Structure formats: structure tokens, C-alpha cells
């Protein structure tokens, strides 16, 4: 009887499998079609373009010559290295944003005003920021004039003209602008923090730093992770506007980034296939980056549990 009952149950599940297995696919079909059109087609097109090499007056060859060409390009190496340099901005702006958010969360006098001030740079258009800073950072620009006026003229530099400084000038502009986004994110998360936790910590005579370290930071951890991941992706594939407007890659190509190389191949050289090859490499690296982040997060979660 028992055996028969189990068999019936199995048969019942089998009998119902056909319509039940099809239904979910039908439900997700519209979304899947949209995804295929929006992401699938461009991705396939990108991959096919990356292996195509148009010849003179129209004929096309296929192979990996585009990848060979771009991988041997020292400018791409330099650009990629600069993207990695910009990665250093991520912990810096995360730390600044967390600290500012924690301070503003304390609701010091005028905190609403300070919050707005901190966020203003983020809402400015990047080309506007770039143009403004390209003037501020000129050899005879506002920054150097300010330094001279406060008796620090010896610190004045050719911020955008010196090949050793230019990428770090761009770096500083990015940090200046992006910090506001982090502050708003972290403040939003802190607003959901149960005040009782902080009060309990204060009753235990925990100082500001102890509360920050043992209450605030753990509470912010998921948002910090989100912000860091997003910022890393930004530093890899969302810094073109800054570089294009502030330095256009110079001087001596010292501020090249990968996106600029893609832009040049696609729109200056008329070589969209080389641009596609670099894009594929960038996509692969971003995928690796996200995979590593995902693995690390799972391990951390496993250790915590």
C-alpha cells in the first residue's frame, strides 16, 4: 500500500510535470525576449565584430587577429594599468564617504546643509566637472593661485601637464565627485539603524570610534560592499568622460584608460572591430572581477554562519 501510494504520488508529479514545467517558461518568456534583444543581441554582435577584420573596399576576414593586435598594444597596457590605479580611489572614497555619513548621522548642527553640500558634486554633469577642473588645475589655474596666496607656492604643480601627476589629478576629481553618492547611500542605510543599538553601546561606555567600528560599520557592510563593487566597475568602465574632458588621455598618454582606447578605435580610427576586441577583453575582466567578489562574499558569509 505504501509502495503503491508512493508510486501514485510519483505518477501524479509526472502527470503534472508537462504543463507545470512549461508554464514558468511562458511566464518569463517576455522578460527573456527583452533581455535577449537588449543584452543578448549586442553581446553576440560584439563577439562577432571582435573576430571580424574588414579589408580594403569591403571584404571581411575572420579570426583572432584583432585580439592579437590589441593585446600587443602598449597603449592598451598603459590604459589598463591606469584603470587599476583608479581602483585605489575606491577604498579612499569609501572610507571618506563612510566617515562623512557617520558624522552626518550624528546630526551635528547644520547637518542637512552639509549633506546637501557633500551631494552637490555628484549631481553635476561629468563634462561640467571636467571642464571646471581643467581650468582649476592649469599651471596658472585657481589651485596654484590659491596655494601661492596662502604661502604654499612651493607646492604648486602643473597638475594636468606633468605626466606623473595627471592621472592622480583625474583620480582626485573622481573621488571628489563620487564621494557624495557614497555618503547618500550610507546615510540612507544608517537611517534604518535601530537607535537602541547605539544607545546600548553608549550605556556600555563605548566612545564614538568604538560605536562607529562595532555598530555602524557592521550595519553598513552590505551597502559598503555594493558601493565598492559599483565603484570598481565604474573605475573600469565609466571614467571615459572624466579623462576625455580633463586630459583627453595626455600628456604623453599618461591618462589613457581602456574606454578611451575603445573610443579611439571605434570613432577616430574607424576600426570598430578592434574596439569590439578591447570591449570583449574589458567584459572578461569585469566578469572575473565580479566572480571574485561573489566568491569572496560567499566565503565570508560561510565563515560568519
Amino acid at each position, binding site marked *: 500500500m505504501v509502495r503503491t501510494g508512493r508510486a501514485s504520488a510519483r505518477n501524479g508529479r509526472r502527470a503534472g510535470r508537462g504543463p507545470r514545467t512549461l508554464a514558468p517558461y511562458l511566464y518569463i518568456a517576455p522578460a527573456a525576449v527583452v533581455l535577449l534583444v537588449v543584452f543578448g543581441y549586442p553581446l553576440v554582435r560584439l563577439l562577432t565584430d571582435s573576430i571580424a577584420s574588414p579589408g580594403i*573596399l569591403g571584404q571581411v576576414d575572420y579570426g583572432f587577429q584583432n585580439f592579437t593586435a590589441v593585446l600587443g598594444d602598449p597603449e592598451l597596457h598603459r590604459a589598463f594599468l591606469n584603470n587599476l590605479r583608479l581602483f585605489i580611489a575606491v577604498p579612499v572614497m569609501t572610507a571618506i564617504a563612510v566617515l562623512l555619513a557617520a558624522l552626518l548621522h550624528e546630526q551635528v548642527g547644520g547637518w542637512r546643509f552639509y549633506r546637501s553640500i557633500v551631494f552637490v558634486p555628484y549631481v553635476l554633469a561629468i563634462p561640467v566637472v571636467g571642464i571646471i577642473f581643467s581650468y582649476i588645475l592649469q599651471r596658472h589655474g585657481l589651485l596654484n593661485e590659491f596655494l601661492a596666496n596662502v604661502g604654499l607656492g612651493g607646492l604648486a604643480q602643473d*597638475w*594636468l601637464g606633468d605626466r606623473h601627476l595627471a592621472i592622480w589629478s583625474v583620480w582626485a576629481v573622481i573621488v571628489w565627485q563620487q564621494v557624495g553618492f557614497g555618503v547618500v547611500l550610507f546615510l540612507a542605510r544608517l537611517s534604518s539603524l535601530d537607535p537602541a543599538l547605539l544607545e546600548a553601546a553608549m550605556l556600555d561606555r563605548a566612545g564614538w570610534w568604538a560605536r562607529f567600528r562595532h555598530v555602524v560599520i557592521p550595519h553598513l557592510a552590505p551597502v559598503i560592499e555594493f558601493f565598492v563593487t559599483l565603484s570598481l566597475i565604474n573605475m573600469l568602465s565609466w571614467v571615459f568622460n572624466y579623462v576625455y574632458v580633463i586630459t583627453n588621455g*595626455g600628456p604623453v598618454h599618461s591618462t589613457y584608460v581602456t574606454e578611451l582606447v575603445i573610443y579611439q578605435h571605434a570613432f577616430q580610427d574607424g576600426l570598430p572591430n578592434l574596439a569590439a576586441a578591447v570591449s570583449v577583453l574589458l567584459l572578461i575582466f569585469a566578469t572575473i572581477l565580479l566572480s571574485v567578489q561573489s566568491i569572496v562574499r560567499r566565503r565570508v558569509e560561510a565563515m560568519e554562519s
Partner: protein
Amino acid sequence: MLDRRQFLRGLSVAAGLAAAPGLLSACSSGSGGGASAAGGDLLVWYWGEQEAAGMKKYFENQVKKYNTSGKDKKGDVKAVLQESDTLYTAFRTAAEAKKGPDVQFFWGGTQALEDVWMGHVAPLSDHVSKSFLDQLDTDARRETFWDGKQWGMPFYQIGTAWAYNKKMFAKAGLDPEHPPTTWDDFIAALTALKKSGVTPLGAGFKDEYLGGWLISYFGGQNFDTIDEAIAVFRGDTQYAGAKYTEWLDRVKELIDRGFFNDDVLSLDLYQGQQLFESQKAAITNSVQPQIVGFERKLGADTVGVMRSPVFGTGKLANFFPAPSQVLTITSFSPRMDRAAQFLEYLHTPAVMKAMYDACGAITPDKRFDTNWLNTQADKTMAQWKATLPNFWYQYYYPFPFERDGVTPGVQQLFQPGGNVPAAVKSMQQAIAKWQREQPAQVKAYKQWQLLA
């Protein structure tokens, strides 16, 4: 020209990107295939307002006159002014779809030939008469003559020279009416200007385009023929030796002697030129319409025009560059013959004069009457143009050579510790990279026989 294109592109990137959808939506006239004189609007994408103010008004007037003249019975001409930043990108997108303008504007030389090699352009010489071609300026024709065919119709030329401040010259004890013509005189003049307390050379190199000017001013002075410029890219010879690289020593000399403004690397090209306009620098690199503008603003008693000082020993050392921008017939146009007819109209004497009057742009055509010229700078440059070799290096090398070799190479000369061997190496590497990445263009260079 690339340098102007680039700096204007930088200025207009945002506007250009915003305009791109609109431009693409204007691609409605082309349908691909069909007869070469199909009906419908003849779509022209042109450019020029940015460097020859008044071009838009001139073009609109001429299109109106052409449409009402009844010369084209199959339809009207519709002209759309392009932004610098989308001139190439919008066209190439349209060309890939084989749906776009019937006539397309390009900056000249290799900047037009690149699209020829991509298959986007139809040979002009297949659609106009030989007598029409013979009337065009030969130097201008040469810039877009490839594989035995004429591809671009020279639209307007831009004499490229140096503007100098006569009053600053006089103050420094120099003859304001006789600017230096040799390198030694040039160095002496710059030294005197510096001693008088002014910045001798006003320039901007942050936006990377000054390198193209400098190589075009100085880089070909040891050439006997233009073919020596393209021989490097055909692979016939190396970019090495004094013939090719002496100009870098000369530029280095200018830098080491402190003749440039000290913020040259943190100013854009136009910001450097503004130093001249605001009379903070004595000399600047400039082009004909801009120099004429300086003259009209500051007066002919203040602004003079001088050619690049000569140091080279080649037959092209004593030269005057007057490169031309071009109009082309697109390879996907179903109205090629009608397009050719409109292009010929632009070269009729009355229309050429109208263009000069409207925007100061000179048509590279043997029928252009130099008596029409009305500024001293134009007259001086016309005289040079008539008597001296015309060669603009930038129009004969592939753009990546400039971007990847010339620009970083020269920029590093401005850096502490910058040196000529490193600049030469930068250029050699750029050529190697171009050969690796652009085999189709290398092949095109091998097919390139210059118009005699």
C-alpha cells in the same frame, strides 16, 4: 584638418552627442541601390562654420539659389550642417547602413581617404568631366587622389602659417614688416622677443593637437618630394635619420630656450592661440580664416603673417601649406550624377566669389580670381600659394601616427628629461602599431601613387 577638427571636437562633444540622433534621423534620403540620378532630395552633410564663420549662411543661400534655378529637375538639395564631433561618427554609422547623405564633407587628405578605403565614397572622377577636374587646383586634388582616381572635390583651402604681432616685434627691435624666414633668424627674433619681456610663442598642447601642427610646419623640410612622406607608411623606408627626425631637434631647441609659454601643457590649442589674440604672446600657429580674423580685430598694423622658418635642405623646405577640405559623393548614393552636378555648381566663379565674400574661404580652383581677395593676410598667402610648394604633412600620414607617435613624442619633449630619441622611438612604435592594426590601410598606402 585634424588638429582643428580635434580641438573643435573637444569643444562640441556634448552638443555633438546630443545632436547625433537628429542627424541620423536626417538620413532619410538615401535608400541604397537604384539609378545614379534617382529622384528625391539630394542630401548634403557639410561642415565649415566652425573654422570659416559664415559658411552656414553661404551654404543655405547657395542651396536656395540652386533649388530655384531649376538646374536639378529631379528634386531639391537639402543641406545639413554637421557638428565637429559627429561629422565622422554619424556618417560612418549612416554609411554602414547604406542610408545617409549623397554628398559628404571630409577634412582632406588621409582623413577623407580613410573613408574611401572603407568603401564609403564613390570616385568623383567617374561622375564629372575631365575638363572640370583640370580646373581644380592640382595640389588640392593630390590630397585625395588615390588608385588613379579623384575621390574628393576640393571645397575650400586653409593657408596654414604663423600670426605674429608687429608691435611686439618693433618693441623688441625687430623689423615688423620682415619676419624671420630662416631658422637662425627665427631663433634670433624669438630671443629678442623674450628679452623684451613677452612670451615669444603662444601655444596649447593639453588637447594633444599641437604635435600635428609642428610636424606639418617642420617635419617635411628635408623632403624633395611628397612621396618621401608616404614612403614610410608604404614600408619602403624607416622613420629614422635626419631627413625625417631633424625637426624634433629644432622643436626641442625652441623648448629648451624657453620660447613657449610655460603652461603650454595645461592649455588647449585654442587657449594657446588666445594668448596671441589677447596680445600676451608674440607669435602663434594659425590658419588663414583665423589670421584674417586677428587682422580684422587687431588691425593690419598689429597682425602680420609669416611662414615657417626654413632649416631643411629639401626641395620642400621653402614651402607654404594650404591644405583643402573636400566634398565627396557617397558610394551608396542613388543620385551620384545629380550630386556631381551640384558639386560642379559650387565651383562656378560666382559661387566661389560668394563663398569668399561670405566666410573668407578660398576655393581651390584655377578660376578663383585673386583680385577678389580683400585682406592683406589673404593677399600675402595667395602670393605664397602661387609661388611655393604646397605640402601639409598631416594630410599624408595616417591619423594613428599622429595620435600614437607624434603627439606623445613631442609632448614628452616638454616634460623634464624629455629627449629626441624617445620621441623618435614613439613615432617608430606608432608606425609599427598602425601596420599591425591596420593592414588594409597599409595595403592602400602601397597602392597610393601621387598625382603628378
